[in-house]
């Protein structure tokens, strides 16, 4: 279909109320065309489809020193396709300072999920940008101190009034330094001065819990000269050329994907013409292309990109139509393979339907199908997966093998803005999980199995070292999560600062390895009632009685602090069925209903849950902080 036929077909589908197919075609349109024209079309059609789609509402503020209005349709279109219904608040031109420092400003009243602070070098540091040649060394240093001081003040003030995520553009270098080639010859250079501000920005961001968007790197990636349109800057204050507007938007989406949890936890890859060139079943070990020389180098680059994802905590899995033994031999023995079978958390090499294989892989990895990304060179397979499993993120396969690695690296669903020790070890956890499951099958009674695990649980109050992981778990745990309340680091810190509030985390080790920090509980006690605000466990340890050990700790602690009752809500979602019977199986009874939600209570004078004898419990003393 040509673009205008595609548009007509989309409108026909909307008329006939086929929202799912309309969205598939809108995505197809966007894959071939991300201009402002297509973006406006997408936004207006999504507006009509919105009631039928399960979109996540998200509020974004943009505090800016330049025109961003023409990027908004592109941003909203990209967000819609990512499953986000974006509402954007724009600050007035150069009004970001007032908006940030005034607690009653439109920015703070808007209560965004995230805010972007986009200020240009030429606006915040005009002296460093255009008058550098006239400045003495002292004046340069003064300018650096002034600019970093301003950023620090803005970011601290933002944090004081707002718990939203804050994304700060760093400062770009000029296309041509004021002093030309001379700028490269000394450390007292323009590029060094701007670089110093950017280095400082990184540490201010760390202090204030903000994220840095490397705008300078973005501009240089696309070429400084091509990025800018000086005429538009001088006439309408739009510094970015029409052809690069969508690149700015894509960069913003790299932050919105992880912040709104629109991410893939696992990437499922095909083998032939994806991990190596050629077809193993036909070309054999000696015939496939994989090695340091062209064309095999393209596939090694691809494998390096996958290794990078693995180290970022993203699980890798194989789904390939092949004879199992041929393909496994290539994976395990081909000298060009950088990935080994131990890098794959699940492997499906068979002739079955790929959609069915993907469902099984998701179940095996204990993640939702919507947490899968899929890469396959066969457009038929991609089409099948798009049609049968629309929640799977299907990566656009480039025609040219040399572009494969890049296609994986630029996928926004693999972006992470912080990384915990758990993330880096995730691949290994899944391997020991497979061994655990084999052990479970070979032991007859549940109790024997629990005993054989030799579990050791360590419960500790919130610390600065655990805060990032605790916040991460509240945001990504869907299954064993009683209330599914999402909190960021700032919100958790603010919560536990209140009297009577506590946050605990649990780490679990067993004979197969360390599972890391896998559970979080947040509770508050008032008038002899302890309420569990949040109770969640990573799916890694579900069904091994760790939840009972954790609850028993909470109940004993509440009792020691004078509580006579423990209560907590169960708020059902589409995904937390594994936690539904948690309170009832631990002696709690329903005392209140609110729609689907139920409030459960346990009288501690009557019964206190006990820690299972096969779980060794270690309590780390201390208060939150």
């Amino acid at each position, binding site marked *: 279909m040509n*673009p205008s036929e595609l548009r007509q077909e989309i409108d026909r589908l909307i008329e006939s109320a086929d929202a799912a197919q309309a969205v598939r075609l809108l995505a197809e349109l966007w894959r071939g065309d991300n201009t402002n024209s297509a973006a406006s*079309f997408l936004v207006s059609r999504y507006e009509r489809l919105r009631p039928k789609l399960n979109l996540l509402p998200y509020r974004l503020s943009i505090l800016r020193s330049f025109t961003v209005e023409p990027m908004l349709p592109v941003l909203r279109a990209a967000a819609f396709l990512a499953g986000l219904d974006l509402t954007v608040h724009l600050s007035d031109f150069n009004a970001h300072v007032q908006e940030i420092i005034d607690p009653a400003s439109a920015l703070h009243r808007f209560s965004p999920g995230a805010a972007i602070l986009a200020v240009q070098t030429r606006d915040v540091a005009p002296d460093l940008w255009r008058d550098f040649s006239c400045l003495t060394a002292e004046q340069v240093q003064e300018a650096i101190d002034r600019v970093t001081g301003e950023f620090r003040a803005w970011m601290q003030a933002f944090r004081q009034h707002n718990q939203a995520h804050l994304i700060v553009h760093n400062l770009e270098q000029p296309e041509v330094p004021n002093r030309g080639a001379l700028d490269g010859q000394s450390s007292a250079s323009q590029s060094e001065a701007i670089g110093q501000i950017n280095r400082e920005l990184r540490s201010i961001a760390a202090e204030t819990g903000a994220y840095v968007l490397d705008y300078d790197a973005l501009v240089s990636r696309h070429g400084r000269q091509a990025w800018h349109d000086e*005429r538009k800057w001088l006439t309408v204050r739009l510094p970015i050329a029409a052809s690069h507007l969508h690149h700015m938007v894509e960069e913003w989406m790299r932050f919105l994907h992880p912040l709104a949890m629109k991410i893939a936890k696992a990437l499922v890859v095909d083998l032939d013409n994806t991990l190596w060139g050629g077809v193993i079943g036909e070309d054999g070990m000696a015939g496939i292309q994989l090695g340091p020389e062209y064309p095999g180098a393209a596939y090694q680059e691809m494998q390096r990109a996958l290794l990078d994802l693995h180290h970022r905590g993203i699980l890798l899995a194989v789904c390939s139509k092949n004879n199992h033994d041929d393909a496994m031999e290539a994976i395990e023995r081909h000298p060009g393979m950088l990935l080994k079978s131990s890098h794959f958390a699940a492997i499906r090499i068979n002739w079955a339907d790929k959609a069915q294989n993907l469902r099984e892989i998701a179940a095996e990895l204990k993640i939702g199908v919507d947490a899968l990304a899929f890469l396959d060179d066969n457009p038929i397979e991609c089409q099948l997966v798009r049609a049968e499993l629309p929640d799977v993120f299907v990566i656009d396969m480039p025609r040219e093998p040399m572009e494969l690695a890049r296609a994986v690296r630029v996928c926004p669903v693999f972006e992470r803005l912080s990384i915990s020790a758990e993330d880096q070890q995730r691949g290994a956890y899944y391997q020991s999980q497979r061994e655990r499951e084999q052990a479970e099958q070979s032991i007859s009674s549940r109790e024997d199995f629990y005993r054989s695990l030799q579990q050791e649980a360590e419960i500790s109050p919130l610390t600065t070292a655990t805060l990032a992981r605790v916040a991460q778990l509240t945001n990504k745990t869907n299954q064993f999560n009683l209330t599914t309340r999402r909190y960021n680091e700032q919100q958790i810190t603010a919560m536990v600062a209140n009297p009577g509030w506590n946050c605990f985390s649990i780490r679990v080790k067993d004979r197969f390895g360390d599972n890391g920090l896998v559970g979080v509980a947040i509770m508050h006690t008032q008038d002899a009632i302890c309420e569990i605000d949040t109770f969640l466990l990573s799916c890694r340890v579900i069904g091994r009685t760790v939840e009972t050990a954790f609850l028993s700790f909470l109940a004993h602690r509440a009792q020691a602090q004078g509580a006579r009752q423990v209560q907590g809500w169960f708020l059902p979602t589409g995904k937390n069925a594994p936690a539904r019977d948690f309170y009832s199986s631990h002696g709690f009874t329903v005392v209140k209903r609110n729609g689907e939600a139920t409030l459960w209570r346990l009288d501690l004078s009557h019964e206190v849950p006990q820690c299972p004898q096969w779980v060794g419990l270690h309590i780390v003393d201390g208060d939150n902080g």
Partner: protein
Amino acid sequence: MTSALLEKIRGIAADVLEVPAAQITPKSSTETVASWDSVHHLNLILALEQEFQVQFEPEEIDRMTSVEAVLSVLEKKRTRAGS
């Protein structure tokens, strides 16, 4: 050539101004299309620049306030570019 070009411009204007393509004629202008305000004008200019891979001069942008004016500016630009 001109009619193919006109069709493309009509399609882009319909997308950006959020009106059905059938309602866009060569005579459509900032006077006749209610949604063609300054924000949508900039959006339309950028969409045209993206589609035809050109950059308009500020004077051209000021002139392009109707579909036929857009067509005439684009035709001149393309003749000059030798395509």
